[in-house]
């Protein structure tokens, strides 16, 4: 027994120690991560963010240096009151700010760096740099901010802002205070533009003194500069589009049909991208974000889903021909509308009976109601007909995300049999229940970019390239999903009559007053009813003005969709704007100055105020044109001249 006491103690101690070591080193320790190791200081060198050029090589976005004061709370030593006062003064903060910021940084992590005061001006930086040595625990991190060489394209270019904690949690590349693309191409091409940070690992001792590179710098990396990109935007056209959209809300998307390149992407109201740079970014962003009425951050060209209205009729004509349920010669009569059962779909006064050509250029509702019924009723059940129709329509890029390189988008909507089965019950609905689809109302929804793409597919006679914004990336090729054509389900031969119909819209139809000399434009007007809830009453507002076009008729160079909220009938605003954009792009100048003056002179702001006026108001026919001040009009003319010069 006596012999055993020491032996037992030794064995017991051995076991306890091994268990303790296991607890400390294996059980309780996370895998070694050099970034968590406070003995190693990580210094980052931020690369140049890639520049952005427009399709003609004009520089749109460059960089400017910015200086952030960073803090590692654990390393901060208390300052005496004069130094403290001076430090706060240099940073232009109050003592309370200091305490608040310091606490925030400490809460995040006492040993990891947090931004303390961000984006100092160059002059503040120059003064501060001299004294930085005095403030242990603080250091200056140089970063690069964006410098916009233009005032247009905020929705296209987007902006960069500080990463938030949820991004850091998902993508360990980013550290607190880093900048990341938040909107637009800055977001979609973040990885291309940002490059890769360089890292230097420095061994520190317990007094936080640098004692040399960690492992002789074998893990250190040099920063890799971000790549420059060229986008497909034609900045003059973009600027012109934004000018035309002034005092209006809506979207314009112009595409080059032969490549799918987006030439212009306008959303109104817009804002100056320079607002979202530097120390005021969050203040300005909040202001834009909180504007829930004009919604300047909502990209109407990409995100606004509207009923496409009459331009959608062209698709029904194509589906009808493809399915062989109608020929171009078939005529349908129109008695101011189309009667079915005891209901009626109204139409306006025009030649009757109408064949396809007349149907398109006069935009006859009755004609398309007949065609649509034949398409759906071709099969035994409306469900089968509906799915077949839906398949054709979707092949034009409608009803789903375009899957492109834009940071936002909406799928729009194309109904299928399932849509109605859900609404009415299986086999408990008939073609007439869905008749509004014939004229692009009803269950169909599309975004302006989808309509522009549809116009491009018609202009190409049956195929399109996914609309995209990237033209070239330094030393890289663009994804081939943007360079391979996507074919629609309609045979090429069926397009000609529809294209001719659209051309006749300009010759003798709803857009005959919008003709541009020397350019063969094909287009289609559209008008969409819309409603708002005012004091819990569904109230009709002035129609949206819609226009879809491409030009020239053969081998089109541009396809465009214009959407103007509450602009009334299609040719009133959208048609004029589309025709002007086409002329400006193709000719580089405007000959139809009468149209231009109209658009630049008249504002729709009074329309947008109506729902908030608390007073009864008239719509459509009762609406009036509201000119802006002569001074502002002259200003617009001056801007136009400047765009021309640039």
């Amino acid at each position: 027994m006596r012999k055993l006491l020491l032996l037992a103690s030794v064995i017991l101690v051995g076991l306890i120690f091994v268990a303790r070591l296991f607890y400390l080193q294996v059980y309780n320790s996370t895998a070694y991560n050099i970034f968590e190791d406070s003995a190693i200081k990580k210094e980052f060198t931020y690369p140049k963010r890639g520049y952005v050029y427009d399709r003609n090589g004009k520089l749109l976005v460059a960089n400017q240096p910015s200086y952030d004061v960073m803090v590692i709370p654990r390393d901060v030593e208390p300052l005496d009151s004069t130094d403290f006062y001076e430090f706060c003064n240099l940073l232009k903060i109050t003592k309370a700010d200091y305490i608040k910021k310091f606490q925030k940084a400490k809460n995040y992590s006492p040993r990891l760096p947090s931004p303390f005061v961000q984006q100092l001006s160059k002059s503040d930086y120059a003064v501060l740099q001299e004294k930085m040595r005095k403030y242990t625990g603080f250091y200056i991190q140089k970063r690069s901010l964006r410098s916009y060489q233009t005032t247009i394209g905020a929705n296209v270019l987007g902006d960069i802002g500080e990463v938030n904690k949820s991004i850091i949690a998902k993508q360990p590349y980013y550290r607190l205070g880093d900048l990341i693309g938040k909107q637009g191409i800055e977001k979609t091409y973040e990885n291309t533009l940002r490059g890769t940070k360089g890292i230097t690992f420095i061994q520190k001792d317990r007094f936080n003194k640098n004692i040399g590179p960690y492992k002789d710098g074998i893990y250190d990396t040099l920063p890799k500069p971000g790549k420059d990109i060229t986008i497909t935007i034609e900045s003059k056209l973009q600027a012109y589009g934004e000018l035309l959209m002034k005092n209006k809300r809506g979207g314009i998307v112009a595409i080059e049909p032969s490549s799918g390149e987006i030439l212009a992407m306008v959303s109104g109201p817009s804002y100056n991208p320079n607002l979202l740079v530097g120390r005021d970014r969050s203040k300005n962003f909040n202001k834009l974000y909180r504007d829930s009425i004009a919604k300047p951050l909502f990209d109407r060209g990409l995100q606004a889903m509207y009923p496409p209205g009459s331009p959608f009729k062209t698709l029904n004509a194509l589906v009808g021909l493809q399915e062989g349920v109608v020929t171009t010669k078939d005529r349908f009569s129109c008695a101011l509308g189309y009667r079915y059962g005891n209901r009626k779909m109204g139409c306006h006064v025009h030649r009757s009976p109408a064949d396809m050509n007349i149907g398109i250029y006069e935009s006859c509702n009755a004609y398309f109601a007949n065609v649509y019924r034949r398409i759906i009723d071709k099969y035994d059940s409306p469900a089968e007909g509906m799915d077949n129709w839906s398949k054709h329509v979707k092949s034009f890029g409608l009803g789903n995300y375009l899957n492109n390189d834009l940071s936002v988008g909406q799928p729009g909507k194309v109904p299928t049999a399932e849509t109605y089965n859900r609404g009415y019950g299986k086999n408990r609905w008939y073609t007439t229940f869905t008749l509004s689809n014939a004229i692009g109302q009803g269950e169909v929804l599309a975004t302006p970019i989808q309509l522009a793409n549809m116009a491009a597919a018609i202009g190409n006679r049956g195929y399109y390239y996914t609309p995209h914004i990237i033209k070239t990336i330094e030393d890289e090729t663009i994804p081939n999903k943007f360079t391979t054509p996507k074919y629609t389900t309609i045979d090429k031969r069926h397009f000609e009559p529809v294209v001719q119909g659209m051309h006749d819209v300009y010759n003798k139809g709803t857009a005959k007053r919008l003709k541009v000399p020397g350019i063969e434009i094909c287009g289609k007007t559209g008008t969409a009813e819309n409603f708002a809830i005012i004091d819990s009453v569904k109230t009709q507002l002035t129609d949206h003005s819609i226009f879809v076009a491409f030009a020239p008729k053969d081998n089109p160079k541009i396809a465009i969709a214009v959407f103007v909220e509450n602009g009334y009938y299609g040719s009133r605003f959208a048609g004029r704007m589309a025709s002007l954009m086409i002329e400006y792009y193709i000719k580089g100048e405007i000959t139809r100055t009468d149209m231009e003056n109209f658009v630049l002179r008249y504002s729709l702001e009074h329309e947008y105020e109506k729902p908030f006026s608390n007073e009864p108001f008239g719509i459509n026919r009762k609406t009036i044109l509201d000119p802006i001040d002569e001074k502002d009009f002259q200003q617009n003319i001056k801007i136009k001249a400047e765009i021309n010069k640039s």
Partner: protein
Amino acid sequence: MLRENQRRFRLDWITIILFLLLIGFGYVNILSASHVGEITSYFDMSQPYGKQTVFIGLTFVLIVLILSFEAKFYERFASLIYLVAILALLGLFIFGKDVNGARSWYGIGSMTIQPSEFAKFATALAVAKYISDLQTNMQTLKDQIRVAAIIVLPALLILLQNDAGSTIVYLAFFFVFYREGLQQVYLIVALSVITLAVLALKFGIIAAGILTSVVLVARYFLKNKKRPNILQYIIVLIACIAFSYSVKLFYEHGLKPHQQNRISLWLRLEKDPAKLELMKKREAYNLIQSEQAISSGGWTGKGFLQGTRTTGKFVPEQHTDYIFSTVGEEWGFLGSAFVVLLFIVLIIRILYLAESQKSQFSRVYGYGVASIFFVHFTINTGMVMGLIPTVGIPLPFFSYGGSGLWGFTILLFIFIKLDSNKINEW
């Protein structure tokens, strides 16, 4: 003649190999913990590792010297050696040199020597000599007092020189006395004292009193033969409560503030977060750094000379008392468990050899050696990984320092010499 020689030099190679492994691995870690910048020469005398190279070299001279004496020499001259050690300790009060507040060193030129490291083997020899005397009976109080005096004398001198850590090591001899016949009751008292002290500090005197009462009542009723006098029980209870109270008093008024704080941290007595924060920056700083270094090693460690916390000198005194944290960081769980294993195997091997000795002197001495290694290892390693309050004593063969290394080497190799001689004894 040849047979005679073989007999004489039956060295226990297992122990020697364990010793060499410890010295070698210890040196590797001192190298890591003490180097600043590039290692230009292992003999760079401006660096601790350079000095350690020389210390280790001299150790082998020392070993040859120890082994060349007759085994009987150590038994015969035990008293004399003890006397010299005591004189050396006394001399410190006159000639000693203060280092970190402790007057434990003689300065000879740039060298320093710490007699307390040598007093251990001297005391072990003296204890062995006394106990192995045929007249000695560890069951008698007279002999208990005398043998206690042998260890108390050096312990007291060391305590007076302000080196409390090294004093604690002398408790190791309890294992020796117990093995050699000390009554069971001492063990019970020793365990009770530790339990009561911890209880009184952690949970208060009342808790200690209640627990004592429960144990006593249970014992009273479980004793089914003749029931002893109830008065005895009451006296024991009062003694226990008085002891608890005195522990508390001693903790609050008898200890120096830094010692008090070490115990407070160990038992987690401090509740005030502000004070705790302050303690973490001061008394617990070493401990926290050391635990972090060990934790960061993971399974296999960061590799030789690759420990970031070791290279950055985050753990103060890392090459001396905190050397085990280097093992933890650079060699990970596998390396540190291996070191623990080396020590355990070494101690068990010495115990095994001690039990197989034919002379009582050798056995008692061997037991002393094992106990001293055990106490050093337990306290040092336990402290470095945060299981035991901070006590500044070195890890045998690992920690930097000539005196320690030589003291432990002499301690061990005298036993190896004694052991090698056992065949010649009848």
